[in-house]
């Protein structure tokens, strides 16, 4: 399973030049910065700095890009915890408990936990990748559109059940999100729901919609608040508390392992990974916890579950990229461009012939995890000061930043207008107990869900019994039903056996 001589070659290559290590530090810092600024994306950072990789060899280019990825994955959790703005879609679940912890003055601990879970997640993720890159690539090859559609439906259902209010409203939110995600041109070549606007032909910009629903709508709710953290004494930024949070992470070993396994597996599914892994991990953690009601109120286990999964989903998506040459999302798509710039094609042949480079990337990521702790500890205190800023200054500043970021994502006014429209929708949703996360994930995955339906229809020739020939699909659908009715079924079975 492990090619020891290739692993040794990988290590030799890695230590052959100090530049291999020097490029990792700016990479992590760039990732942290782009992840932490609302509206800027990891994929954007990688795309902006992609031309710089022309002056590097292929391995250095990959080390640089993966270090941006690693820094960005954690960086996204900083605004999620401090401002309820998930920096990326993979930090959505981090905000569920991170933000309530911040509001109670636990921002230092929450950031420390997120940093700890991210670093251990990266280590575990690449560790799993080191051991299982072969089997993972075979498993991913078996995931067809039917399985992807089932995973998306499962994800949306899970998010719907996450809402603290009405389960029905949660599922309605997810379904509406999916429908919004299908706006624009269809496979049939016609435009739907665009209201005649050319800006909407490619669909509603998903990330600006996410920024609007999560961030802007939350800021509207905070206009009467004086500070993010009400208690003056709790507002201080403390390295000690961040370190305590870091240490606290290791008191959740099962949460990290479970999150990491979910992250690697879901992360390796092209396109679905990063957005869904953190949510599924969070949901599973909530279901298995003795106090599920404490989730969403500031339970550290929620942050651990989300951060462990989103960090390991990086390793999963890189596994798919290396093993199959298929990018799992925006960031890995930029990496694929780096492959092309260096005349390299990912896929089974690449794994077979360039195993040493694959191992070098994996080993470098172990080092990146350690560096992330150091750089994160330097970077977090600067950003954690946000809790000291009065809300009447913070609210308009972040609202403005979200419009800048949205413009950056779309390159035209459709981004800012999407933020505006979805901030109103998000505010209405929150006020009437609809699930904002479910709607957001629906918007992110709606187009992909539709594509999966279409490909399944085309492959099966319209014969739906085809689904019964796909055991993985059936297994995922069973998981979907269990996650909806599992508790009721368990209670019914217990009642029957007691009789």
């Amino acid at each position: 399973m492990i090619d020891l001589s290739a692993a040794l070659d990988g290590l030799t290559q890695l230590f052959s030049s100090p530049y291999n290590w020097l490029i990792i530090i700016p990479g992590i810092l760039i990732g942290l910065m782009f992840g932490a600024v609302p509206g800027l994306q990891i994929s954007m950072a990688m795309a902006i700095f992609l031309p710089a990789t022309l002056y590097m060899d292929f391995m250095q280019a990959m080390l640089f890009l993966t270090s941006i990825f690693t820094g960005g994955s954690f960086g996204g959790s900083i605004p999620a915890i401090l401002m309820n703005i998930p920096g990326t879609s993979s930090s959505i679940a981090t905000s569920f408990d991170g933000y309530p912890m911040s509001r109670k003055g636990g921002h230092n601990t929450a950031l420390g936990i997120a940093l700890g879970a991210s670093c251990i997640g990266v280590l575990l993720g690449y560790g799993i990748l080191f051991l299982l890159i072969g089997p993972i690539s075979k498993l991913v090859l078996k995931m067809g559109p039917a399985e992807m559609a089932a995973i998306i439906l499962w994800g949306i259902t899970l998010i719907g059940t996450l809402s603290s209010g009405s389960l029905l409203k949660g599922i309605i939110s997810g379904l509406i999100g999916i429908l919004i995600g299908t706006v624009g041109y269809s496979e049939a070549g016609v435009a739907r729901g665009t209201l005649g606007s050319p800006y909407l032909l490619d669909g509603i910009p998903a990330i600006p919609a996410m920024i609007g629903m999560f961030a802007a709508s939350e800021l509207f709710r905070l206009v009467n608040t004086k500070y993010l953290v009400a208690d003056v004494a709790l507002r201080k930024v403390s390295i000690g508390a961040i370190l305590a949070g870091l240490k606290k992470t290791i008191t959740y070993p099962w949460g990290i392992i479970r999150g990491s396994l979910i992250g690697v597996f879901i992360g390796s599914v092209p396109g679905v990974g990063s957005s869904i892994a953190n949510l599924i991990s969070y949901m599973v953690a909530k279901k298995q916890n003795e106090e599920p009601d404490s989730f969403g109120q500031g339970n550290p286990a929620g942050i651990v579950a989300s951060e462990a999964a989103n960090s390991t989903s990086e390793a999963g998506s890189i596994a798919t990229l290396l093993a199959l040459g298929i990018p799992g999302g925006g960031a890995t798509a930029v990496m694929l461009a780096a492959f092309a710039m260096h005349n390299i094609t990912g896929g089974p042949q690449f794994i077979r012939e360039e195993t040493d480079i694959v191992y070098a990337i994996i080993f470098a990521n172990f080092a990146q995890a350690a560096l992330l702790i150091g750089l994160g500890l330097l970077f977090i205190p600067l950003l954690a000061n946000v809790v000291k800023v009065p809300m009447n200054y913070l609210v308009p500043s972040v609202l403005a930043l979200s419009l800048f970021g949205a413009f950056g994502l779309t390159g035209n006014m459709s981004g800012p207008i999407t933020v505006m429209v979805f901030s109103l929708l998000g505010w209405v949703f929150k006020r009437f107990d609809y699930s904002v996360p479910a709607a957001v994930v629906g918007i992110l995955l709606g187009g992909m869900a539709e594509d999966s339906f279409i490909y399944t229809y085309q492959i099966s020739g319209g014969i739906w019994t085809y689904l019964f020939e796909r055991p993985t699909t059936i297994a995922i659908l069973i998981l979907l039903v269990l996650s909806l009715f599992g508790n009721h079924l368990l209670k019914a079975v217990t009642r029957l056996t007691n009789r």
Partner: protein
Amino acid sequence: MTYKSHQAKALASHQIADLGILVVLAGLVVWYFLDAKSASTQILNLILILPFTVITLLLCLIQFVRQLIRPPIKEPKVERVKSVIPVISLFVAYTLTLPWMGFDLGTMLFIAAFLALHGERRWLWVAGYSLSFASVASLFFAAMLPYPLPMMIFPS
């Protein structure tokens, strides 16, 4: 009007609004389906939209009946809505005028207006903060983005 009757009235209007939102959401789903159907009735066009519309409407109906039988008893904070409306209006105006005012001037005016709306009366401070934030943010994004950022004062 006593505090209790005021609260009861607020709760009743919240319940009506809750039902209204459900109806509006269902209406939007129906509109989207009809729009998609009028574009094309091919399976490829409606393969997801049709079943998801049906399921959503069914769930909306169940929720509607539920809310009629057992209305939500959570007390709404009406005063919050009153204080949020000016902020929302300001944000909408800021967004819609960006193409003409540019990100630099638009952001400066938005932040200054927001601060004034929230009781900041140190005018020098208002001007200084809004000007410096708008300048730094617009210059940073103009430098980082690969396309021109609409600007009024600074070069895009």
